[in-house]
């Protein structure tokens, strides 16, 4: 089983919380967005506190940090562009996985319609990465700065990510003259306040339409990985040990953690026999 943790840490110096989360949940792959903590500092802290060593990523500046428990010979960097970083996991015994770590532009800088147009460019990056590795066992994880129901996420020419596993199993959908491959978006299961909070990010604005809670932090998987995603292990975390990441109003507490809540999920990749 491979356990992933994604967290947009909003430039907060919260290395202690990150290390505690990695320990607590036996995280194998740590992905951080908006981090001002450099790889070296994180590795020193992680490797001082854990029994298993974390390895560095390719040592060049990137928008997203990806640190793993796997030596670099098992992980091939595929690309690092402004908003997406791809890594190819070829672990012994397991079928390979293509990981795309994402941090898309904020709604502060890109309008909703611009975000939709931008998504078509991201999908060509995904296609290129999939062509490069020769398979479509792809997971995307990160801060999309869009909700699961927004056009850029759902549109065929966008991420084409939908909430229904069975439909996703069809593989692709023909629209106009083209076939568009699906992603499955399990984040739809996390709408509503069943877990005591209703998203990964909270923003209150004085406009006509106000969702308050957003699920900007998401994972999307290709149909090939549907059965390998352990759906019950997909969690939005609001606690680090005994420390709550929420304030007394039940909203993300930036004075303790980040303005985003972390996302935890696991994959049990198919074994190569």
């Amino acid at each position, binding site marked *: 089983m491979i356990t992933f943790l994604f967290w947009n840490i909003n430039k907060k110096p919260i290395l202690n919380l990150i290390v505690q989360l990695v320990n607590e949940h036996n995280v194998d792959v740590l992905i951080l967005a908006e981090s001002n903590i450099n790889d070296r500092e994180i590795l020193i802290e992680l490797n001082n506190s854990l029994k298993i060593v974390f390895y560095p990523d*390719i*040592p*060049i*500046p990137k*928008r997203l940090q990806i640190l793993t428990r796997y030596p670099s010979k098992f992980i*091939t*960097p*595929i*690309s*690092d*562009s*402004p908003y997406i970083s791809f890594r190819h996991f070829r672990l012994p015994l397991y079928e390979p996985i293509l990981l795309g770590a994402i941090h898309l532009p904020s709604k502060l800088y890109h309008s909703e319609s*611009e975000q939709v*147009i*931008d998504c078509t*460019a991201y999908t060509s990056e995904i296609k290129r990465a999939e062509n*490069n590795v020769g398979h479509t066992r792809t997971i995307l994880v990160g801060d999309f700065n869009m909700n699961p129901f927004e056009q850029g996420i759902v549109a065929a020419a966008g991420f084409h990510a939908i909430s229904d596993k069975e439909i996703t199993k069809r593989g692709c959908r023909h629209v106009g003259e083209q076939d568009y491959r699906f992603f499955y978006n399990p984040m739809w299961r996390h709408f509503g306040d069943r877990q005591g909070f209703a998203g990964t990010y909270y923003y209150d604005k004085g406009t006509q339409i106000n969702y308050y809670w957003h699920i900007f932090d998401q994972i999307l998987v290709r149909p090939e990985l549907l059965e390998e995603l352990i759906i019950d292990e997909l969690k939005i975390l609001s606690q680090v040990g005994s420390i709550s990441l929420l304030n007394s109003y039940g909203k993300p507490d930036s004075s303790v953690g980040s303005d985003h809540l972390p996302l935890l999920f696991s994959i049990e990749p198919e074994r190569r026999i």
Partner: protein
Amino acid sequence: MADKSLWGDLKSIENIKTPAAYLVEQATLLSKETGNLLVGVVETKQWGVDFRSDLIVEVPYMNNYRYSLLYVEYPLEMYPLHIYDLINKREKECASQEQFIDSLREILSSPAVHKVLATLKAQNFSST
């Protein structure tokens, strides 16, 4: 009547180079000067109502790993444009071709960019 040009003097029309063309020149130079250990690639696409050109370094020895150095967003009339330096994490507006060339020079010759190029070039030797 038919043979008489109504275009005026077409020879006086300026030969204008697009921002993408400048990036292609620099990409070609990178490939040449590193003996194709690092290959410069430029990708241009429509970006909303504007155009966007990305300058990417490809590393053949690393399974064609791609790293984006910078990108430029420009309108049909080309200037003013915005240049985004992804390594030094800076954005600049360039009002003219001259300003664009200056900014491009400043980014491409910056120590941070050279450090990245050196790291990527070194991967060639560590992966052989």
